[in-house]
C-alpha cells in the first residue's frame, strides 16, 4: 500500500517548543504505603503533580510561552492554537481560547480542544502540520497537556501525572527540526475509556499491553520507517508514549532501537505518565540536547486506540534558540516531594461536601 505517509505540500518543521512540568512529586513509595502496605514498588520512581492553582489551561500557557520564546516570534502570527488533553478544565469552553488570549494570539485563529486519550496532543500536531503544510497559514501551535488522575487505589495512581509540551509548526526554512513525514494507525480497541460525567477512567486489563499499546506503536513506527526507507540505526533518538518505564523500552526493542536511543526521551521514571503530554515532553527533552543532523522518531499512543508516528531531522538553528526558555531538565530538577495527603488535597480527591 503506497501513500500511507502524510507529507506536506510545502516543507515545514518545528519553529519553537516548550515543556512544562509542575513542581510537586509523589513518590511511588507513598502510593504503596497508603494502598499496598508499603509492599508494592510501582512502575515508576515518582510522578509530577500539579499544584492547587494549576490545570491544563495554566500549564499550557507556560509551555506555549516557552515555545514562543524559542520561536522568537510574535504570537499574533499564529493561525491556530490547539490543545490536546483528556483533562480540559471545562467540558464546554475550549482550553485554546484562554491559552490564546493569555499568550497574545488571536482573534484571527482556529482554536479547539482535541481528544484522543493520550494521543490528543500528537493529533493536534498532525493538524498543525497540515494547516501550515497546505499553505493555509504560516504558523500553528499544538499542545499536549494533562493533569491525569487514577481512581484512588487503582494501579494508575502510581503513574497518572501532570505535564506536557507545546510546539509551533512553521515553514521549514526557520525550523529547529524539519518534518519528514508522519503516519497514523487507528483501530477500535477497548483498552481504556472514561464515560461522560465519570471522574476516573476504566481499563480493560487484557487489552492494555499487546493488542493496544504494542500493536499500535509497532504498526505505526514500522510503516513510517518502511515508507521513508529508514532503519532504526538511522535515528539518534526515539521517543515512545510512556505509560510506565518498561512499555516504551520494550516497544523500542520491538522496532530495533537500543536503550541508548530511547533513554533521553524516556521521562516516565521521574515524572510518570503525562498522558497527552507524554510523547511530546519526551521530544522536548530530546530537542534540549540534540545536535544538528540528528534524526528523531516519535510514536505516540492513545487508548481507543491509535498511534501517530513522526520523523524529524534537527537543524543548525537549534543551538542558538534552545537556551531561550527553561529546559525540560530544569523543570524535572525543580522538585518538591509531597505525601499522599497533600496529593489528595491538590488533586481534589477529598470531597469537601
Amino acid at each position, binding site marked *: 500500500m503506497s501513500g500511507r505517509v502524510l507529507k506536506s505540500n510545502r516543507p515545514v518543521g518545528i519553529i519553537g517548543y516548550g515543556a512544562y512540568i509542575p513542581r510537586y512529586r509523589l513518590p511511588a513509595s507513598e502510593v504503596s504505603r497508603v494502598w499496598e502496605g508499603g509492599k508494592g514498588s510501582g512502575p515508576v520512581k515518582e510522578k509530577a503533580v500539579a*499544584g492547587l492553582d494549576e490545570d491544563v489551561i495554566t500549564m499550557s500557557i507556560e509551555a506555549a510561552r516557552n515555545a514562543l520564546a524559542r520561536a522568537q516570534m510574535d504570537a499574533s502570527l499564529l493561525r491556530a492554537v490547539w490543545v490536546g488533553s483528556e483533562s480540559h478544565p471545562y467540558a464546554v469552553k475550549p482550553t485554546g481560547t484562554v491559552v490564546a488570549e*493569555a499568550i497574545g494570539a488571536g482573534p484571527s485563529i482556529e482554536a479547539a480542544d482535541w481528544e484522543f486519550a493520550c494521543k490528543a496532543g500528537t493529533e493536534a500536531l498532525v493538524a498543525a502540520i497540515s494547516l501550515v503544510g497546505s499553505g493555509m497559514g504560516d504558523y500553528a501551535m499544538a499542545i499536549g497537556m494533562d493533569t491525569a488522575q487514577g481512581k484512588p487505589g487503582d494501579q494508575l495512581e502510581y503513574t497518572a501525572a501532570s505535564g506536557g509540551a507545546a510546539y509551533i509548526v512553521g515553514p521549514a526554512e526557520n525550523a529547529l527540526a524539519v518534518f519528514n513525514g508522519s503516519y497514523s494507525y487507528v483501530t477500535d480497541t477497548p483498552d481504556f475509556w472514561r464515560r461522560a460525567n465519570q471522574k476516573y477512567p476504566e481499563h480493560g486489563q487484557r487489552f492494555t499491553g499487546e493488542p493496544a499499546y504494542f500493536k499500535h506503536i509497532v504498526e505505526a513506527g514500522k510503516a513510517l520507517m518502511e515508507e521513508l526507507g529508514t532503519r532504526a540505526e538511522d535515528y539518534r533518538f526515539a521517543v515512545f508514549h510512556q505509560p510506565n518505564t518498561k512499555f516504551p523500552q520494550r516497544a523500542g526493542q520491538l522496532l530495533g532501537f537500543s536503550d541508548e536511543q530511547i533513554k533521553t526521551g524516556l521521562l516516565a521514571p521521574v515524572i510518570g505518565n503525562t498522558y497527552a503530554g507524554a510523547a511530546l515532553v519526551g521530544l522536548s527533552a530530546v530537542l534540549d540536547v540534540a545536535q544538528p543532523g540528528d534524526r528523531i522518531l516519535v510514536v505516540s499512543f492513545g487508548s481507543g486506540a491509535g498511534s501517530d508516528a513522526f520523523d524529524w531531522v534537527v537543524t543548525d538553528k537549534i543551538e542558538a534558540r534552545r537556551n531561550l526558555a527553561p529546559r525540560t531538565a530544569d523543570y524535572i530538577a525543580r522538585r518538591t516531594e509531597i505525601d499522599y495527603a497533600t496529593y489528595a488535597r491538590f488533586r481534589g480527591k477529598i470531597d469537601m461536601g
Partner: protein
Amino acid sequence: MENPRHWRIRKQRYALVGEVCPHCEAKIFPPRDVCPNCGGEAKTQFNFSGKGTVFSFTVMNDAPAGYEKNLPYAVALVKLEEGPIVTAQLTDLGDQPVQIGMPVEMVTRRIRDDGDEKGIIVYGYKFRPAMSSAQ
C-alpha cells in the same frame, strides 16, 4: 455575577499587559492611560517581562470567598524589573521560605474558582520563585 468585570481586564490579568509613556518612557501597570510620572497621555501597550523581586509580603490564613482553597498563601508586593509595583499572590513556593528581595517571575494561574464547580474559572497572574536557568 462579576464575569463582565473579569472579562474586560483579562489581558492585563492574564499576562501583565500594561502601558509605556511615549513622553518619558515610564512603564505603567495597571494600565490607566495617563502617565503617573509626567502626567502625559500614555496609551501605548507594553508587555512586561514578568521578572521582579519581592518588595514585601504577608501570609494569609483567612481568605475572601472563592479563595479559601489555597489557604494558607502568601501575598506580596512585587517590584517589577521595569519599575511598577504590583500586588499578587505567590505560588509554587514548595517548602521555600519567602524573603524580601527574592527574585520572582510571573505565571498565569487559577486565581479563584466557585466552590460549586459550576461557575467560570478566573485566571490571572501570580509570581513564583524565579527558575534560575531561564535566561
